[in-house]
């Protein structure tokens, strides 16, 4: 794959530059809410990118991907609660636990196909959700506050918002690059081949189950990393972070951005989460001439607009944002 100048690549480059400059802007204007929002966006984008590895390239629609966010987050939260605050212990352990869960869930789920796969991944995520609810020692339903972020000696200070943002962004870019290399490697070709025609891939001698399982585990582990970051970002973990609607949100991000490319879900995550913030304001502004004072309340009902919009994206913008950018080049 060679890099060439197109609207799609320009948009991607502009986006990455903008992401890199966010903290500068925040420091200049003192608007630190934006920094917090974009830290969240970057973290959830990582989860969406990881989901897209199995969904867009492998054709495995996991409706339970938020579970790995929860597993990664709870690994950090529980260790911190028990007094282990070193990131050098927390992070590898969290990733290992995520990988282990993905291995077990993947090995069982990949026996099924299609809707059954969607539903069995949902079922496993629900089980993990209820485990979280049942962890009464660690807050149960109410969640668990993390009093100290992961410590890395004097190496990096995660409590510094700017440092933390750049760490998340760096990890996201590393993830995107890694997945881009992966899907264009021999391994990635097998995964994509298995999506198109699994029987043929098996006939020419690839043990597709093992390839798909490996892909599933990689995806789950990256999503676990997103969970580790999210726990450090919010200083809090709760079962709500692995609620099934969270998994739905991740699917929305990936599809909204476009599943055909590695960067697509990044576009989708930004669009979705920025939209979530902007839509209520927008409704209030647009509604003011018609509704008067009631417009302020109308903003609360932003999901009534979001829902049909999702439907419209599904119906008319199949390739998502990335697909639209790609088609601009041809026009």
């Amino acid at each position, binding site marked *: 794959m060679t890099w060439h100048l197109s609207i799609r690549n320009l948009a991607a480059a502009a986006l990455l530059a903008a992401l890199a400059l966010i903290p500068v802007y925040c420091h200049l204007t003192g608007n630190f809410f934006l920094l917090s929002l974009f830290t969240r966006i970057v973290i959830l984008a990582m989860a969406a990118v990881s989901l897209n590895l199995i969904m867009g390239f492998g054709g495995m629609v996991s409706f339970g991907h938020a579970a790995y966010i929860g597993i990664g987050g709870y690994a950090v939260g529980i260790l911190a609660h028990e007094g282990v605050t070193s990131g050098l212990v927390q992070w590898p352990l969290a990733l290992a636990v995520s990988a282990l869960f993905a291995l077990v869930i993947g090995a069982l789920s990949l026996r099924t196909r299609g809707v059954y796969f969607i539903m069995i991944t949902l079922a496993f995520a629900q089980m993990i959700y209820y485990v979280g609810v049942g962890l009464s020692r660690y807050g149960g339903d109410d969640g668990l506050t993390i009093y100290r972020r992961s410590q890395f000696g004097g190496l990096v200070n995660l409590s510094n918002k700017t440092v933390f943002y750049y760490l998340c962004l760096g990890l996201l870019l590393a993830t995107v690059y890694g997945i881009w290399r992966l899907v264009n490697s021999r391994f990635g070709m097998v995964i994509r081949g298995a999506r198109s025609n699994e029987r043929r891939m098996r006939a020419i001698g690839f043990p597709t189950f093992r390839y798909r399982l490996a892909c599933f585990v990689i995806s789950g582990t990256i999503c676990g990393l997103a969970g580790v970051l999210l726990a450090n970002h919010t200083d809090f973990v709760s079962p709500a972070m692995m609620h099934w609607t969270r998994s739905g949100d991740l699917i929305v991000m990936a599809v909204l951005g476009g599943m055909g490319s590695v960067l697509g879900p990044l576009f989708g995550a930004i669009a979705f989460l920025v939209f979530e913030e902007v839509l209520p304001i927008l409704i209030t502004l647009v509604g003011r001439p018609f509704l008067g004072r009631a417009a302020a309340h109308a903003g609360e009902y932003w999901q009534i607009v979001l829902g049909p919009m*999702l*439907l419209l994206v599904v119906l008319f913008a199949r390739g998502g944002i990335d697909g639209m950018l790609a088609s601009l080049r041809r026009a």
Partner: protein
Amino acid sequence: MLLLLEQCLNGLQLGLLLFLLAAGLTLVFGIMDLVNLAHGSLYMVGAYFAATFTALTGSFMAGAVLALAATLLVGMAVEVIAMRRLYGRDHLDHVLGTFGLILFFNELVRLVWGPAGLTVPLPAWLNTAVPILPGIYYPAYRIAIIAVALSVALFLYLVVMRTRVGMLIRAGASNREMVGALGINIQLLYTLVFGIGAALAGLAGLMQAPILTVSIGMGENILILAFVVIIIGGIGSIRGAFIASVFVGLVDTVGRAFLPELFKLVMSPAAASAAAPAVSSMLIYLLMAIVLVLRPEGLFPAPGR
């Protein structure tokens, strides 16, 4: 022993309610090949309609009938406006599009009925306990639910297996192009099937309304249960849905009732009361995972799929 009988009846009642939801889901999936996450929203809408119409007419029965009709209309409207455009697309599109519909319906209900939950009062003649065995009383309304759901199940069976419409439904499930080619108005059939599914979901919702508080998001938890049911039963099979829903209802209810006691036998009371609710919530998902691992197509896969 008494408790076990009572819990079994509760489980049966939950199972039959699940069947009402699952039957619609599995029909829609079997015939239109559509994964409808918004099915739970229709259940919720049915319950809200029941609350409103009961308050308006002052009679639960009249409210229920009106709510049923209203949900049928809402279902058919949803089919004509949105679902029709999703047929023949990828399942992922269905998941996403209907996920959008859930958001829409939740907010719409919040807009129309407000964020607070509603309660539906039972008429006095249903709000009593009747003896089911000498000296053992059970709420009349729960028995009524069981009776209604069982008769609906029987009716559904007769319609699908013994009538011309049912024949078309079965034919549509096995080869829709052929049915269309034979001059059947397949679009009308689809709208009808979707409407019936919606009405069944609405029926489940309105019957549940006097027992639970009618609230936003009430459809989502039970929707996931209904999906578990149709996955265990085998997608597209009404018989499978029936058996699986009763099974799931029993396992869930009886598990919740007896796991705490069971756990106390092997661990400390404190640990047991902490672990039991979580494990009993997981039980049916565990059941589904086991079924899928052993039989990836469910217990009773519909023939020809």
